[in-house]
């Protein structure tokens, strides 16, 4: 009831100070008034400010009433209850007001929120629209750019330039009047013209092709004609044979040799070709021949073009063992023989030297091991009587040893061979070297075979350039070797008789009178040389290997005996012989206890270049021996006389010397000066 009364009362109050904006609402409210009471509607009509004022006023009233009630209660009395009651009722009313105000506040809040929400929704809708439109715009822009960037295929074709087009195209295609103005038409016209041109060119191409076919056919015909000539030419050559012989032009013989050469294995073939070429170009005395059975060679192998020397050796060996499996009871010996088998053909080289001695070299090829070996023989124009000490000089086994330093020919140069040897129980190739020949490194090089140590290759093929680059040096070395060995041979014969053969052009190196004599010259075994007590230095320096030859010379004068141990390197005379001395005279003197003996060794070992004589210095060894005799003379004659010992000197001084001793080591004067003939110090 009170609410109704307040409702009635309130509109009046509101109307009087309501804002014009609330006018509409007022009307709707009054319309609804008749139907039902809407507090929401009422909210719109009220002024929040005034409500706030009302709230404050109500709170104040309440406070005042509460205070009065408390006063009254504390005063006490009868009236008090009625007053309290009155005031209570008033405060209830105020409470009601407060509650109403609270409700209104809530409603206002809700309304406010709703409005905000609506507005937000609207904004969102617009925003969405905006996004959509922007998206569309972007899309359209993209489409536009795509369209603008479109390149039609026709632009990839390189069209002829405009001027050319107008020049060359026939008017019905170029249609100048239309195309000049309209670029679209112009391009179309140009494309047309392009098409025309291409068609014409395709025609031309077809014509050319057919021409080519025709010409090829003609060439075939002519070729056949030429090949039919071959048999006719052969018959002419046969007919000309007698003429060749009559005129001494053995082209045919050379031709036959080349025929045989075709069956040689590649390394021997390389050697043959290079040696023949060298012989023709540089050295007319070199003769090359092929020995052996061609039929066997043909039987062994297929034609040289697909020879299986190129395959790995283990494959070749495997083939052989598979072939052999049918025959039972295979001995290890047979396997070894098979591995070491030689090719049936061999190349023979004959090197003739100036004095009519000949070095015969026979080169073999070991097929399974892919190495070449050589056997050597020296024949002289006259029969040679071999002195005892010269036994090893020209022996086939050692005459070519160490042609290049370190090339002793006892080991196989192909590292792959070691595995093959292990399979058949061969320890080393040196056991078979006597019958098979020596596998020297220079022989492999002449055959074009190169076995690099760092990167072992699967297949080693014969190389012509390797052979050519080594041919000249090797031939020259071989000749020098033979000649120096023959010279030594002759010299040894003389040395064994106690005569040091000094040639007339080397006489100037020595004084006229030499009293010390060579009494003995013998060979010494390598082990015996190493056991001598005065050769330790040479052995320690690594100069006494087992490829060298060792000799002992004995020089005497009076009671003095000088032993000289000689190391002859196979590379004599470019590598000098090395002497070590031991003097037995008033005690044993060697280089460790007598500085002068050391100096004498130095005179022959280090100063050997003076003793080389004229090239090719075959006189080196004999000159060294003669010098030793001179040095012994000087040593004995310049020995200072011991005052405490009775008697004259054993060796009176006959040599002319400027000074007897010089320097801190008190050296004797060992250097001979020509032509004045006196001795001085170095």
């Amino acid at each position, binding site marked *: 009831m009170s609410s109704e009364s307040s409702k009635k009362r309130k509109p009046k109050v509101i109307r009087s100070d309501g804002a014009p904006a609330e006018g509409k609402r007022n009307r709707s409210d009054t319309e609804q008034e008749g139907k039902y009471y809407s507090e929401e509607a009422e909210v719109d009509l009220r002024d929040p400010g005034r409500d706030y004022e009302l709230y404050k006023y109500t709170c104040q009233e309440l406070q005042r009433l509460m205070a009065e009630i408390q006063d009254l209660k504390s005063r006490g009395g009868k009236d008090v209850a009625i007053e309290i009651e009155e005031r209570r009722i008033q405060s209830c009313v105020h409470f009601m007001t407060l509650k109403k105000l609270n409700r209104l506040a809530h409603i206002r809040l809700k309304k406010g929120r709703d409005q905000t929400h609506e507005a937000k929704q609207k904004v969102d809708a617009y925003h969405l629209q905006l996004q959509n439109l922007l998206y569309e715009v972007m899309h359209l822009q993209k489409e536009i750019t795509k369209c603008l960037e479109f390149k039609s295929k026709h632009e990839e074709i390189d069209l002829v330039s405009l001027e050319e087009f107008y020049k060359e195209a026939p008017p019905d295609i170029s249609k100048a009047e239309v195309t000049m103005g309209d670029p679209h038409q112009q391009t179309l016209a140009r494309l047309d013209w392009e098409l025309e041109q291409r068609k014409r060119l395709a025609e031309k191409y077809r014509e050319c092709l057919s021409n080519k076919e025709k010409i090829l056919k003609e060439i075939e015909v002519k070729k056949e004609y030429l090949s039919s000539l071959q048999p006719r030419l052969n018959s002419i050559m046969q007919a000309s044979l007698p003429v060749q012989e009559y005129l001494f032009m053995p082209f045919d013989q050379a031709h036959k040799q080349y025929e045989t050469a075709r069956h040689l294995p590649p390394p021997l073939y390389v050697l043959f070709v290079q040696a023949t070429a060298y012989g023709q170009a540089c050295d007319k005395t070199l003769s090359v021949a092929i020995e052996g059975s061609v039929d066997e060679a043909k039987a062994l192998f297929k034609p040289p073009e697909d020879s299986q020397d190129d395959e790995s050796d283990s494959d070749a060996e495997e083939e052989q063992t598979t072939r052999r499996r049918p025959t039972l009871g295979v001995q290890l010996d047979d396997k070894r023989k098979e591995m070491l088998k030689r090719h049936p053909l061999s190349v023979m080289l004959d090197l003739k030297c100036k004095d009519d001695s000949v070095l015969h070299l026979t080169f073999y090829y070991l097929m399974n091991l892919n190495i070449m070996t050589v056997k050597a023989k020296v024949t002289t124009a006259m029969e040679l009587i071999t002195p005892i000490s010269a036994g090893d000089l020209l022996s086939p086994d050692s005459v070519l040893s160490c042609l*290049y*330093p*370190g*090339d002793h020919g006892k080991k196989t140069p192909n590292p792959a061979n070691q595995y093959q040897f292990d399979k058949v129980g061969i320890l080393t190739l040196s056991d078979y070297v006597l019958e098979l020949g020596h596998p020297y490194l220079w022989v492999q090089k002449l055959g074009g075979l190169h076995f690099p140590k760092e990167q072992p290759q699967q297949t080693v093929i014969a190389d012509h350039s390797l052979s050519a680059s080594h041919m000249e040096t090797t031939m020259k070395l071989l000749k020098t070797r033979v000649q120096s060995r023959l010279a030594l041979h002759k010299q040894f014969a003389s040395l064994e008789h106690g005569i040091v053969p000094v040639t007339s052009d080397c006489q100037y190196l020595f004084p006229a009178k030499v009293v010390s004599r060579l009494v003995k010259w013998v060979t010494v075994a390598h082990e015996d040389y*190493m056991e001598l007590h005065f050769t*330790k*230095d*040479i*052995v*320690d*320096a*690594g*100069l*006494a*290997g*087992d*490829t060298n030859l060792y000799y002992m010379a004995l020089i005497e004068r009076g009671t003095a005996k000088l032993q000289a141990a000689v190391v002859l*390197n196979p*590379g004599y005379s*470019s*590598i*000098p012989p*090395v002497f070590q001395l031991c003097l037995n005279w008033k005690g044993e003197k060697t*280089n*460790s*206890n007598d*500085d002068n003996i*050391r100096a004498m*060794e*130095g005179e022959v*070992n*280090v100063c050997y270049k003076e003793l080389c004589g004229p090239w090719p210095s075959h006189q080196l060894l004999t000159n060294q021996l003669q010098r030793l005799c001179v040095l012994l003379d000087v040593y004995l004659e310049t020995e*200072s006389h*011991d*005052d*405490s*010992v009775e008697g004259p000197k054993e060796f009176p001084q006959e040599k002319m010397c*400027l*000074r007897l*001793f*010089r*320097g*801190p*080591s*008190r050296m004797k004067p060992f250097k001979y000066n020509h032509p004045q003939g006196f001795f*001085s110090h*170095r």
Partner: protein
Amino acid sequence: MERAVPLAVPLGQTEVFQALQRLHMTIFSQSVSPCGKFLAAGNNYGQIAIFSLSSALSSEAKEESKKPVVTFQAHDGPVYSMVSTDRHLLSAGDGEVKAWLWAEMLKKGCKELWRRQPPYRTSLEVPEINALLLVPKENSLILAGGDCQLHTMDLETGTFTRVLRGHTDYIHCLALRERSPEVLSGGEDGAVRLWDLRTAKEVQTIEVYKHECSRPHNGRWIGCLATDSDWMVCGGGPALTLWHLRSSTPTTIFPIRAPQKHVTFYQDLILSAGQGRCVNQWQLSGELKAQVPGSSPGLLSLSLNQQPAAPECKVLTAAGNSCRVDVFTNLGYRAFSLSF
């Protein structure tokens, strides 16, 4: 008896020649650089090699550190004697003295600073110079050798100031007596002569072969000489003997048969070396304290590196009839060898 044979390396002509040269090499003289870190050695082929002592003695020394830093041909004949001043190396051999700058020598292609030849009487044969002696007080160098005379050369001007004659055969060795100053020279004629430098006259002669230390079967020659104010030790053909100079009497004869080629005083010992492998250490009383074997069959020169600038390189080096210089870090054993 099986001897271990070294691996035979394929030797061509040059390798064989070099090996033979090294086998027959004799190192006659040594000299230490003023900084103490380098050693120069001169051999019979006229070459001088400079070794780096500091790198050979360092803890990371490899085989290459024992080879010379640089080798060059200094003279045509053997280099018999070398001394070092505080900046130069003076080397002498066949008749002339050459000077080299220590700082320049380590570079390749070094040229000598100067060379001088003393005025010789004979022109037939150029006499060798066997001994060089520095006299610091008057900044001069004394040379002696094959022409039996002592020549004095002033190091600043290079002129030869004095000639001291008296020996009848060539001179082997020189020693300096600081106090007077006097020079002692020993020669092939068997006499040790004392010369006063101020008066340029011979003041004393000791004919060693006339005393009880003589050994006639070896000869009379005096090969080595060292002096320590009143005392002198000399040897060679005669036995190694310690002499009291003022009274010219031999006090101790050292019992070693081999002729000695180099002798020097060191602290309270006498070090000597000669024919035979060992460096001998003697007490002044004549007792043999130690015999340390080296690597050469005979020794010709000993050098003590006492340069104050390099105390870590304080070593004794010995060289002689081989291409090797033995280095002794302490006198008890041979530490290693440098090699040409």
